[in-house]
């Protein structure tokens, strides 16, 4: 099987053109990543599978959802599924409930950390962020807060929070590029 992390313009063009084989191939390559993206937010196997199912069908049935101009298919789908999972959390349960559920209802079988080196690089990159950027970043990624909620929680102007989160994500992106030093 091709490296699932590598860009594949042929697959992306075919997916954008709604060629059925491309859907099957994308699922074959990315299902673990997509399911993990959902499960790590929802912490329930059935909910996570529902989320992946509905998000993928929604993308597939909307011809304008993904085009090759939109970027990398793998990242697009991963963020799409994760955002769908976050919407479910916001819509159906309180954050306190979600956190309790995360503790008491582990259902899926843990597989592995696929790349310990990458994980270490990410942690180092997050640790290297200034506090003012790291805090809102973590509230967004692990707390599923919107930027409006984060600005309120940190008593910081909304524009400032948006800017700090954007800078943090860009710094992470640069730090995680191949060959980059954290």
């Amino acid at each position, binding site marked *: 099987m091709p490296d699932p992390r590598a860009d594949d313009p042929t697959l992306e063009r075919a997916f954008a053109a709604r060629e059925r084989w491309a859907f099957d191939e994308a699922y074959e390559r990315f299902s673990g990543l997509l399911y993990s993206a959902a499960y790590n937010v929802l912490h329930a196997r059935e909910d996570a599978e529902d989320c992946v199912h509905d998000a993928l069908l929604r993308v597939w049935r909307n011809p304008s959802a993904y085009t090759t101009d939109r970027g990398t298919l793998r990242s697009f789908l991963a963020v799409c599924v994760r955002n769908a999972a976050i919407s479910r959390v916001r819509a159906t349960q309180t954050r306190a409930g979600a956190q309790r559920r995360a503790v008491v209802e582990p259902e899926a079988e843990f597989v592995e950390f696929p790349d310990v080196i990458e994980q270490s690089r990410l942690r180092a990159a997050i640790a290297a962020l200034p506090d003012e950027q790291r805090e809102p970043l973590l509230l967004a990624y692990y707390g599923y807060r919107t930027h*409006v909620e984060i600005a309120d929680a940190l008593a910081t102007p909304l524009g400032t929070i948006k800017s700090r989160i954007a800078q943090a994500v860009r710094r992470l992106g640069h730090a*995680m590029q191949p060959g980059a030093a954290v």
Partner: protein
Amino acid sequence: MNHIDDSAELYALGALDDLERKRVDAHVATCARCARRLDEAERAVTHAIEADPQYEPSAALGARLTASLDARPTRRATVPRTWFAVAAALAILALPIGYLARGPMRPPSDAQFANATFKMMKLQPVAMSAHVTYAKTGDFYAVMVKHPTRALQVAYVHPDGTMETIGKVETHGDMGVAIMPIDHKMLELALVDGSTVVAEANLAFN
């Protein structure tokens, strides 16, 4: 919409609400510069997703997806984009006028009932039990919500992803109802709580 700027990173991180996300989707569909910025942000966040614990879905998920794809042809994928553009333009022009002129809760006429075919489809995913019943002709739509707990609105999701509020769910005992005599075939509806989409339905008119 202006360029999305810092909203790209917020989108990738999951820090936008559903309506803000829809606006970003609509913008990047026509702006290559913002699409590139969003792609970079999504690549960065995907590194974080990969660093979280990894799991595998059950085999049933793949089978379920296959069944869903085989069961329902991708009608919207086969319709020319020009039709969507025309439909979206017509909807933007016609819906508010029709909506205001006929009122949000006016029930369908006897003639409409007599000539229409009804379809029922569950809105999903859903935090409460909800259905939409609509005329095959696209003449009107009725959304019913069992035990509504919040002030809900019904929105038309335009083909370009933008959303337009077209009705308000009014509570009658244990049921919430929104009747919308809108003469337009809307392919996608959403149930919205504040700025959060709590349920969606794709509609077919064949």
